[in-house]
């Protein structure tokens, strides 16, 4: 019970989101396989979304849907901030589009070079 009081849900979400960002960045920097780099990007993306959602949380708040469950008069004190949620919704869709384009680039590289290792693609290396 004490542990739950010390670590509220938003702290857990924030902490794991920040950890996911670091894991994803580590994957993007150290892995040589293009598919693994893309997975690293997706992890980092998810981490950023979790951090944004955690920041929008209000203590004891519920989903910002004003109906019978959340009376209108008291709504301001009982719901979480709708703005970060809306931003995350946008960010998820953009992340999906970016991932799709990266995967099709990976397929294209595999078709022309028969490999997914980034070390083989050395002409743009400086």
């Amino acid at each position, binding site marked *: 019970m004490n542990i739950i009081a010390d670590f509220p849900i938003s702290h857990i979400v924030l902490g794991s989101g920040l950890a996911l960002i670091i894991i994803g960045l580590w994957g993007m*920097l*150290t892995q040589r396989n293009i598919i693994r780099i893309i997975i690293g990007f997706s992890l980092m993306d998810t981490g950023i979304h979790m951090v944004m959602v955690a920041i929008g949380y209000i203590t004891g708040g519920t989903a*910002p849907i004003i109906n019978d469950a959340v009376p209108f008069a008291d*709504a301001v*004190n009982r719901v979480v901030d709708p703005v970060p*949620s*809306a931003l995350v919704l*946008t960010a998820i869709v953009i992340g999906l589009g970016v991932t799709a384009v990266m995967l*099709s680039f990976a397929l294209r590289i595999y078709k022309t070079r028969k490999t997914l290792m980034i070390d083989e693609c050395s002409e743009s290396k400086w």
Partner: protein
Amino acid sequence: MIKRLFIFLMLALLAMIFFNLAANYSENTTLSKLGHYYVEKGPQELGAPNLVTAVVVTYRGLDTLGEVTVLFISAAGVGLLLRRTRRQQDGEDLEKGDRAEETAITHRPASEIVETATELLLPMVILFGIYVFMNGHLSPGGGFQGGAIIASGTMFLLLALPESHISRLLVAITESLSGFSYVIVGVLGVILAGGFLDNRFMDLGNYGELFSAGAIPLIYTLVGLKVGFELSAVLDRFRKEDSGPL
């Protein structure tokens, strides 16, 4: 080696920054000024119970139009990158003869369980997708979520019946029409109501009913159709690429 060390050092520094951020973080107890305004005025002004939808579709509607455009561009980019030129196709057809044995192994049909489950579940999945985007202003959900559910139905279809094909023409027409209507609805908001993508040019109706909140259900239906068809086309592109001998 030195590179690894450098990466490790950088990540350790970043972790320190993040640790400080997380350690000094305390939950908000009141809404931000903007959030407060939306929660206080949103239901009255727009008639939409789901405030995330109100923010996404109306208050920040222009962002959503840009988001739909980004998704469209990425779908077009995938189409461009994974397109097959006539010459490639001919070369592959020639190769196919040599590799007939290999391809025979890779083209294993889906199992009976998957096929039967698809026949049973596909109409329900698509119906659920439509439900989610029609009710975007009342319950958690909306155009993007509903569109993604419809695309998962397409994924199901492609897994169970790999030979089925999605009509490019139908996708192009639906996508263009819904995107175009979305902009038209936005411009109607300028002419008949307060500004671009203002939902109040239609009757706000009774609070909490399916056909209420002005143009929000209309906009989310258009977005849902557009996203669903776009993602289905992207899945189809990847599948087409995969089915050819590499």
